[in-house]
């Protein structure tokens, strides 16, 4: 039982004593953590935004994308090094902040960071820009003329939630397009972005003023309006309610990129349901469920399982339960706050009641267990479970039958973990894509998107930039004004 202290935020040019501070308290597994978070006044936020904008113009915007990638690569190398003090701090504090099992955080963090090494970042850039040099200088384009992609002068990030490391996606994206970045961390996980920013400044002091990490209690109108007024682009994460509120405070001339909460699910085809493969598929599925206790937008909330395999859907539900029980030993679920525990309990009771009215329905897992599997013998519309390792398995006659069940959730769909033969994979991908799904992964890889993935089907980098074109006519006309013109 120990008490740790940490400081969140990264505020170039501001001294601690010029700021007001608040404390956020966390506790997990008997240890407690006090995180001091800075509270800037609206005027301080505006001044900070100006400083970041000016500095990024001077430092970041004069670097080539390759040079920026090299810097990020050095930062990531430090974070991947088990002996590095920043890595050690992250490993110590993130489980305390989020409550997730330390070993799960460590493994997940490593896997996640690996997607930000130089080769992966190059792929990331190449994914959006056929010619990445377009971020550095004017380049010839297909239709004729030249173009150059300019990142925002100032990009504001509103991060949410407690999935460790999530802010790094948008922050690194901002850096790659050479934006000045001011990110607001969430009260649920205020540390990772702060650590990253500090380490970046240490690795490349020239970039020290090109980014900042701030905090305020979500929904603060005065601060949001002050900072958004300075931004070219606001990227915000959160539930639709809070996004709507944020959108209302973003000036109409500022680009707004909302990333709402998403609903993901798995599909297991009969090809994956022979005696051998069913066990390994269930193991991978259980892993996707346990990872971050389903808090990620890519985490499965339902598995649709096809009938007709050697292993019946109901047996698959049993296998899944078995694997969840095993994983609970290896990576115990975090201690749930009362409200979430009540949510899980309520969901369990609803499932229990369903077993009275629906033939073949069952609920697997004791009331006190840290996981539950609800089984339904017929497909039902996709709906969220209670998260925190609660999962619904539904039998379908054919995987095709899933498509109508997800239609109502179009706006929320994201990842599908799919276990099926190649021919089916491509046939289903077509239908799933039409229904609104944006990512199809292997089961077991649902929570680890590839480097360069198109988050929610959008372009991570292209969406951030402004293309400036020199049309052919300008180039042609310029010829006539050349001093060497005959």
């Amino acid at each position, binding site marked *: 039982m120990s008490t740790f202290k940490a400081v969140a935020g990264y505020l170039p040019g501001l001294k601690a004593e010029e700021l007001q501070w608040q404390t956020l308290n966390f506790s997990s597994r008997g240890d407690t953590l006090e995180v001091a978070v800075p509270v800037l006044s609206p005027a301080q936020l505006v001044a900070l935004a100006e400083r970041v904008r000016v500095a990024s113009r001077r430092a970041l915007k004069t670097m080539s994308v390759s040079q920026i990638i090299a810097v990020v690569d050095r930062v990531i190398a430090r974070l991947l090094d088990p002996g590095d003090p920043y890595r050690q701090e992250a490993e110590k504090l993130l489980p305390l902040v989020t409550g997730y099992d330390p070993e799960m955080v460590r493994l997940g963090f490593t896997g996640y960071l690996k997607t930000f090494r130089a080769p992966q970042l190059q792929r990331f850039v190449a994914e959006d820009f056929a010619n990445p040099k377009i971020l550095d200088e004017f380049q010839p384009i297909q239709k004729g003329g030249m173009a150059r992609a300019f990142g925002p002068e100032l990009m504001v990030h509103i991060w949410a939630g407690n*999935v460790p490391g999530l802010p790094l996606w948008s922050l690194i994206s901002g850096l790659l397009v050479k934006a000045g970045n001011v990110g607001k961390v969430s009260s649920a996980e205020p540390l990772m972005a702060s650590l990253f920013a500090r380490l970046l400044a240490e690795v490349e002091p020239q970039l020290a003023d090109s980014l900042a990490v701030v905090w305020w209690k979500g929904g603060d109108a005065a601060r949001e309006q002050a900072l958004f007024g300075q931004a070219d682009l606001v990227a915000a994460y959160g539930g639709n309610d809070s996004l709507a509120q944020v959108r209302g405070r973003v000036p109409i001339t500022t680009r707004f990129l909302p990333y709402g909460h998403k609903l993901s699910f798995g599909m297991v085809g009969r090809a994956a349901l022979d005696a051998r493969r069913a066990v390994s598929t269930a193991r991978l599925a259980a892993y996707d469920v346990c990872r971050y206790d*389903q808090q990620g*937008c890519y985490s499965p909330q339902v598995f649709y399982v096809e009938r007709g395999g050697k292993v019946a859907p109901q047996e698959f539900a049993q296998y899944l339960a078995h694997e969840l029980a095993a994983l609970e030993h290896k990576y115990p679920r975090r201690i749930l706050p009362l*409200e979430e525990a*009540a949510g899980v309990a*309520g969901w369990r009771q609803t499932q229990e009641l369903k077993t009275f009215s629906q033939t073949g329905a069952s609920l697997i897992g004791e*009331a006190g267990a840290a996981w539950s599997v609800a089984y339904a013998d017929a497909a039902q519309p996709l709906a969220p479970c209670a998260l925190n390792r609660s999962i619904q398995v539904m039998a379908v006659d054919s995987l095709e039958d899933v498509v109508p069940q997800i239609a109502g959730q179009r706006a929320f769909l994201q990842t599908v973990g799919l276990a099926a033969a190649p021919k089916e994979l491509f046939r289903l991908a077509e239908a799933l894509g039409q229904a609104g799904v944006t990512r199809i992964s292997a089961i077991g890889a649902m929570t680890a998107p590839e480097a360069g993935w198109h988050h929610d089907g959008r372009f991570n980098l292209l969406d951030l930039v402004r293309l400036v074109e020199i049309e052919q006519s300008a180039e042609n006309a310029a010829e006539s004004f050349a001093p060497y013109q005959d």
Partner: protein
Amino acid sequence: MANVKVPESLPQGLATELVEALLAFMAQQDSTEDEFNLHALRLFAHQFQHNTAFQRICQLRGKTPRTVRSWRDIPAVTINAFKELSLSCVPPEDCERVFMTSGTTRGDVRGRHYHPTLAVYDASMTRNFSQRFMQGADRIRMGILFPDEVVMPNSSLAHYLALAMREFGATGSDYFLGPQGLDSARLSEVLAQVQQTGEPLALLGATYSFVHLMDELQQRGQSFKLPKGSRVLDTGGFKGQSRELPMEDFYAQLSSMLGIARSQCLNMYGMTELSTQFYDAGNATLPSVKSGPHWIRSRVVDPLSGKELAPGERGILVHCDLGNFNSVTTILTEDVGVAVEGGFLLLGRAAGAQAKGCSLAVEDFLQAARA
């Protein structure tokens, strides 16, 4: 004091002796743990035998009358079950009254609580109300800020308030909420009148109706100093029916606008799924301690394990109400509470936890479905 008797004709399957014994038990001044236990176990055996839906819940949890030795072991039934199942020992169509939940939280599915006779509910309500709200007075002039039973025949609160007015209301008691909403003009006349005559007035109604009243009075620039002995009973919270304000501000404003001390502003905590109510002793300080009569007992539990928590720990409230002789005695609420000396603190609702991450949570989903 109401004189409640067992009606002469009761539906078949209703154990008349059970009801009689229960009414006699409720008439006692107090009861010991053993006496409470005896009645609770008797009712449990009865409900287990006569209600198949409940029996299945018990069997799922491995509980039968043979294994349950204490009221604490009786399986707690989630209030959601009142929506999904028919929790009644007699056929629902034979029941004198069915109370339904407002259906505000989950679409149009409404929980149903079947009462073969209202004798027990009424006895429970009147004994408890007399002691906790009337505080020794026989009658008091009442203003009810809620629709009457004709408008809302399935509302337990409408029945509760009608009963309060019938059994304890003095001449001049009246309803001030009609189809057009709060009749604030007529109410403010009454407020002015009693202020002059010195007759104490009790205002009773939904918490949100008091917000409407305060808003109206504020708009008219009116405030009152009601005579000594006047009091307020609010219940149920805001339910999205009015603007929401912190309870501290609610009682401060109520007290200053009506001139009633906060110690005379009582909050009643009741549920459609119960037959007995809880009261505090005024809201001078918040949160106030809630408690019920000797025929209801509450526990604070961990929602996942169902284990009882130590006093001072936050958990979910479970109530064992012997007044629920026909449905189920023991219900698991969605209310967060803490056990304290003399009762419990009610700390709000646990439902609607937001996702911590970016996964769509049930609450967001329902909201989207409603939109």
